[in-house]
């Protein structure tokens, strides 16, 4: 992908929608958004049997509004490898995410700790270690 893919709330609303229910700290939250794998597909990143070679050295560098960063490898997310379901969420309990939660955040329900469920997500950078 040469050109950055810019997605706003409207773009996300037109993509295949998904949801995740969490119960962190005993508070039930119904997050809605789009699976990261769908975002990657839209960005032209290969998946499944096509995810090979240099793509297996790839990761997503997630960056929040305040500069906070975490990574997910492409293989970790792909259903034929790690299959880690990560939601790019734009709404919770039927309302758009706001303030310290939004407008976009990640929800990684399989992670036992919340540190990669980045709030105030601003940028996803695809990095390939092997060129």
């Amino acid at each position: 992908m040469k050109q950055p893919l810019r997605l706003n709330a409207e773009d996300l609303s037109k993509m295949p929608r998904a949801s995740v229910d969490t119960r962190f700290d005993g508070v039930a939250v119904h997050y809605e958004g789009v699976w990261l794998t769908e975002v990657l597909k839209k960005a032209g990143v290969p998946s499944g049997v096509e995810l090979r070679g240099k793509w297996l050295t790839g990761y997503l560098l997630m960056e929040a509004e305040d500069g906070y960063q975490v990574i997910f490898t492409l293989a970790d997310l792909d259903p034929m490898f790690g299959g880690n379901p990560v939601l790019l969420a734009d709404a919770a309990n039927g309302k758009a995410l706001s303030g310290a939660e939004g407008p976009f955040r990640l929800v990684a329900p399989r992670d036992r700790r919340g540190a990669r469920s980045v709030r105030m997500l601003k940028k996803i950078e695809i990095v390939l270690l092997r060129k």
Partner: protein
Amino acid sequence: MSRTIHLLCGATCRTGLRKFALLLAAAAALCAQDFDWRLRPRFAPPSVPADNPMSAEKVELGRRLFYDSRLSGNGTQSCATCHRQELAFTDGLAHAVGSTGQLHPRSSMSLVNIAYAPALTWADPNLSDLAPQALAPMFGTDPVELGLKGMEQTLLARLRKEPIYQSLFPRVFPQSADPFTVENVTKALAAFERSIISTRSPYDRYRYDGVEDAISAAAKRGEKLFFSGEKAGCFQCHGGWNFSGPVRFAGGPAVEAEFHNTGLRAFYKAPNNGIERHTGRPSDNGRFKAPTLRNIVLTAPYMHDGSILTLEGVLDHYASGGKAIPNKSPAMRSHKLTPQQRADLIEFLKTLTDVELLRDPRWSDPWKAQR
């Protein structure tokens, strides 16, 4: 509820005995939930010990006891002396003062949402059940708080004389031949304390009800600073919906209490040496519980020893990064906030005040009307 029981048994029961044990546990859970917590939608109730299920009458008995000065040796104090409803169940003092005038080494803690706390006090990792905890202020001598040491029978005799207790104790503890016991007093107190739940602040309306104008633009900016690990980073210790770190709730996972050294002192001397006092480990010197920040504008002075008078002073301490000592929490990093950011952060903290809590009759002094 019956669905929960069915799922539990279907998933795990292999023998009749185990099934029976699970049914008993489920029955206890049912009893525990025979109480209207009046929780915010989508919030789980707190976990309740199987041997002390909640009931409205038990909470009422606990409330009576909580506000009863017969629970101090010399009749001058009750639990409510140091845990005042109008101050979010703190006392406004740097150091709590016991019934005989002795100063407590630490500041009185808020009881708000204590039912969800994996640790109850500033620095005791072994205290996680409210009923036995009540023994410390009642009978403790280091320091003397309510000053009841050696007066167990005197206390129970006083309570037996009260017509309201003559009616309440047998109804709340019908299985006891003599319901007037110290253990039952502590269980009723625990049930009352467990019922004190605060989730009706403007911030709750903003965050959980989606009411956008429930808090100001400044408070919204402050919220972002609070929850940013790259900026103020307050949430690293005061995280979660209770702004106190991980919480325990009914059906939730086991949660370990967290204690932090914030570099307030170069060395924390006993008896204010944090959980080192209980573990004996030097690496635990100065590690204290991060108290809830709910209602924080009402609970000054701040820190375990009440040594900081204002929220501005607290921000100064955290911005400084604390003293350079080995035990200090890695979350303590010096940082700079602009005057605007400091003001925004304080605006955010102000939105955590639940004014309903301060006047809710469920938690007010029941004896007042009779006096």
